[in-house]
Every structure is written in structure tokens, then in C-alpha cells.
């Protein structure tokens, strides 16, 4: 008890969230287990939980870092159009070669193809728009938005021309799902997430300073141009991983980052990063639980998350307007 009292308010909230996440994990993991089936179920459910935590981490911290970089509380890396690019790649493959080819492709090929394209696109965009002489972050974001809607438009153009059977297969890729997470991809994702985590840990203090704004952070000796570029590339990698792993979940980032800011009320990224990961894990897992046990697969995780996140986003905008 005395130990609990020594903790700061932030650490208590983090601890509490961790407990909630643990409870949800157990709720998901344990039901209907018995001596004969436990190996099968634990393996299956455990894999899903790992995938969910990886996705939660990727989406959460990339959204947090992106908000700090852009100094804006209402946007997440999704506005940069990476998810539209992902959808475009999937649609394009089916459109050109047909769904057979897509299902024939090994998961590795697909994974690296999608991630490779998304990273190349982000790298090209940063180098074209975000220049040393013209460090205008909003120009970068707006260019990303325009390109995002271009890819979205192209995708839906190709989708209308598709054979209905092929379209059904494509549709499976358009909604986030943890049902067919490929175990072999989890290892690769972990490997890609590792350097990102290293960058985040290394940059955590610099990110704290960056939340003061561009000129203040330059004044305090942060190499703004390099930091922003590194963090943006990292966000692109993380978003690519989570999208390729489970599919697009647009409103999760904004939901968990806003909640984290509200709950912790701190500038310290080291604490916010932990909380944001725990929260997004909790939301994703709870949504998966609902989909599987309550709605018996009649809906998808992205529908539930986007519903909650979307409503919360509207609330945020209304509140922001009243200020």
C-alpha cells in the first residue's frame, strides 16, 4: 500500500490500464478451456493476442508521435493516405492478375510488396515535399491527403470494374481482422518493430521538447529537420506493418491518443507511449472479444473501433470548437 502511494498519478493510471488489459486478455484467453483442448486454444488465442498488441503498439505510438510532430491534436498518420495506398496495392493486384494470383502469393511476398511500396511512397513524398529550406510540415500532410484521395479514387474505380466474386475476396482485405493473422508474419513484424522502438526510446526526450513547437525546440538544441524526418519514416513503417498485418483501422489512433492525453495530462512521451500501447491493446482486444463472442462474427473489429472512435472524434471536434 505504501508503494502505491509513492507512485505518481500517471504511473497509477498506467498500472490500472495494464490491469484492465490483463483482465480482458484473461477473459479472452480462458473461457471453454479444458485439459484436452487447451493446447489448441491457447496457441490460437495467444497468437491473436500477440498480433493485437503489436498492432496496438504500432498504431498508438505512431499516432502519438505524428501529433507531436505536427503540433495538432486532431490528426493521425492516416491522413497521409498510407492506408489508401495499401488498398490501392491490393486492388491493383486483383485487378491486373485476379484473385487467384493474390491468394497464390505467399504471405511473405504480399507483406513485403505492400510494406515496400508504402515505405517507398513515404520516402519519396518526404524527400519531394519536406525540404531543408522549406520545413513546412502542413504542406507535407496536405500533399499526403491529396495523394491519399487520389489512390482512394483509383481503387474504387478499379473496384467497380471487378468481377463480383473477385470483389468479395478484396472486401475481406478492406476490413481489419485478426482471424487469419499469419504466424509467420508476426516474427517479421516484431523484427521490423524493434528498430522503431529503439528510435522511440532514443527520441523520447527530444519529442517532449518538440511539443513546445518548432522554433522552441530548435532553440533548445533539437535537430528539428532530422528528428521530424526520422519520426515520420518510423510512423510510416509502423502504419505499414499494422495495415499489412490486419488491415486499416482508421479511428483507433485518434481515440487512444486523445484518451491518453486526457488521462495522463503530461508532456512526457515515455509515459504516454506506454499508456497509448496499453489502451489500444485493450480496445482492440475488447472489440475482438465482442466480434467473436457477442456478435458471432456478424461484424468486424474495424466497424466497432471506427464506430467508437468516430463518435469520440466528433465529440472532440465539437469540444474544440467551443474553446
Amino acid at each position, binding site marked *: 500500500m505504501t508503494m502505491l502511494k509513492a507512485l505518481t498519478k500517471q504511473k497509477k493510471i498506467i498500472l490500472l490500464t495494464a490491469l484492465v488489459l490483463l483482465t480482458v486478455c484473461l477473459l479472452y484467453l480462458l473461457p471453454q478451456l479444458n485439459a484436452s483442448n487447451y493446447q489448441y486454444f491457447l496457441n490460437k488465442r495467444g497468437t491473436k493476442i500477440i498480433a493485437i498488441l503489436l498492432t496496438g503498439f504500432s498504431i498508438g505510438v505512431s499516432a502519438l508521435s505524428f*501529433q507531436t510532430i505536427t503540433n495538432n491534436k486532431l490528426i493521425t498518420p492516416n491522413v497521409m493516405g498510407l492506408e489508401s495506398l495499401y488498398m490501392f496495392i491490393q486492388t491493383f493486384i486483383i485487378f491486373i492478375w485476379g484473385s487467384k494470383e493474390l491468394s497464390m502469393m505467399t504471405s511473405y511476398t504480399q507483406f513485403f510488396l505492400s510494406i515496400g511500396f508504402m515505405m517507398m511512397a513515404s520516402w519519396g513524398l518526404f524527400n519531394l515535399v519536406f525540404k531543408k529550406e522549406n520545413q513546412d510540415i502542413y504542406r507535407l500532410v496536405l500533399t499526403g491527403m491529396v495523394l491519399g484521395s487520389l489512390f482512394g479514387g483509383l481503387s474504387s474505380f478499379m473496384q467497380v470494374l471487378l468481377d463480383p466474386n473477385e470483389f468479395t475476396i478484396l472486401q475481406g482485405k478492406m476490413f481489419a481482422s485478426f482471424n487469419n493473422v499469419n504466424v509467420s508474419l508476426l516474427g517479421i513484424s516484431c523484427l521490423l518493430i524493434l528498430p522503431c522502438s529503439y528510435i522511440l526510446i532514443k527520441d523520447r526526450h527530444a519529442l517532449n521538447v518538440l511539443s513546445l*513547437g518548432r522554433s522552441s525546440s530548435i532553440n*533548445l538544441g*533539437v535537430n528539428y529537420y532530422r528528428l521530424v524526418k526520422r519520426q515520420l519514416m518510423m510512423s510510416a513503417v509502423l502504419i505499414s506493418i499494422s495495415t499489412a498485418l490486419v488491415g486499416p483501422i482508421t479511428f483507433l489512433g485518434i481515440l487512444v491518443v486523445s484518451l491518453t492525453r486526457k488521462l495522463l495530462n503530461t508532456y512526457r512521451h515515455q509515459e504516454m507511449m506506454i499508456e497509448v500501447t496499453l489502451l489500444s491493446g485493450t480496445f482492440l482486444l475488447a472489440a475482438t472479444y465482442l466480434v467473436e463472442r457477442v456478435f458471432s462474427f456478424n461484424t468486424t473489429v474495424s466497424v466497432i473501433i471506427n464506430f467508437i472512435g468516430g463518435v469520440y472524434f466528433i465529440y472532440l471536434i465539437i469540444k474544440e470548437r467551443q474553446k
Partner: protein
Amino acid sequence: MIEVKQVTKVYDQFPVLNEIDVCLPEEKIIAFIGSNGTGKSTLLSIIGRTLEKNGGHVYIDDIELALWKSQELAKHLSILQQAQQSIVRLTVEELVGFGRFPHSQGRLSQEDQQHINRAIAYLELDHLRTRYLDELSGGQRQLAYIAMVLAQDSHYIFLDEPLNNLDMKHATQIMKVLRKLVDELHKTVLVVIHDINFVSYYSDHIIALKEGKIVAQGSTDEIIRPDVLKEIYDIEMTIKEIDGKRFCLYFE
């Protein structure tokens, strides 16, 4: 010492600064004056490395700006520009603590804490320490930001229009603090100020810009004269001396 050589800045082919050469004196309050759009803030931002120049060189203690390591330079030179809205809520103490970042990289030591306390005391903000910045008045917030720069403990301190939107009480308080920084702590302070009487009363050295060029520079006594000011601002000024200080009247 700060030396500026042939510095040029161009926005969309429109030159804002045109081959500026200037050498700044040490341990003085140096005021940049001139009408709107003459490049004062641009020059200050370029020397303070928040803006990239298109040509020329800036030497801080004989080393070119681009060759300084960002972290090292932040220990020698600080610049305070119009405070941006931050997405996080900070208390005065937390903000001032950020000033120690170049020295501590985020982990505050005992010594850092002393610097923070001293800076807060210097600006008489002790009673506001734990208050959030968004609860303060504009003047108090500006004082808090100056305390942050003070905690940074750099030799050169640049302030871009620090008196903007402040009442007389806060404006004079800030100018007195800057005076003390030079007289007691031997700092070199560079400011952009619009009110010519604040410049005349508090500064030691004046650099005047007009259309991207330096049109006059020298000690305050050399610049605060009707003929020089007429050339800088294109308006007639009457100058009166009260208790050894010159005041400019330009309301006619």
C-alpha cells in the same frame, strides 16, 4: 562574438535581406529597429538558426552556424520567438525546466534544479510556479518563456518582439530584466522592438534596417537623432531629453 557576412534571404524571388554585413558588440542590449517588413525578424531568425539563409555566412564565436552541433549551440545561443500554441499543458516550472534540455538532455540534475529556481526567482514567478501556462495572462506567459531562456544559461539571448501585446507594467518589467542580464550576468541580448522609446531608454546599441539593408548602426546616442530616424522611418520626429534620456515624439 557574432559576425554576419553577406547574408541574403529571398522569398519567392523577392529579396528580404540583401547581403547583410554586420558585427555585433558584446555585453550590450542590441536593438534591431525598422518599419514592418524590413527584415529585422528575418535577420534575427537567421542568426538564431530557426530560419535557413539563401547565401552568406554567420559566425558565432568564429564558427560558422552550420558547423555547430545543435545541442552545443543551444548552450551558447538562445532565441525566443512568438510562442506557439503547444498541444500539451505545461506548468511554469515544467516550461522553465525545458530550458535545461541542452545541458541535461531531459534528466534534471540537482544543478539543473538550481538553475530553474534561480530563473524563476529572477523573473519573480515564484507564486506562479505550479500554475498552467494557459491559465496565465499574456504578460505572465511571456515572463515564463523568458525564464525558460534564462535557465538555458546561454551567452547570447535573442528575443523577437518580446513586448508584443504587453501592458506597460509587464513591458518595463521585461526590459528591466534584460538590462539586469547584461549588467549583472554579462550576457549579450539582441531584441527586435517596435516602440522606439523602449529602444531609446533601455538599449546600448542599435541596428536599423530598411528594405533589406542596414541603413544605420551605432550606439543609442548616435542613432536616436531626428535626421537618422527620419531616414530609417520616413517620418519626422521631435526628440526631447528628460533626465538624460531621449524620448521621441512622432504623434503629430
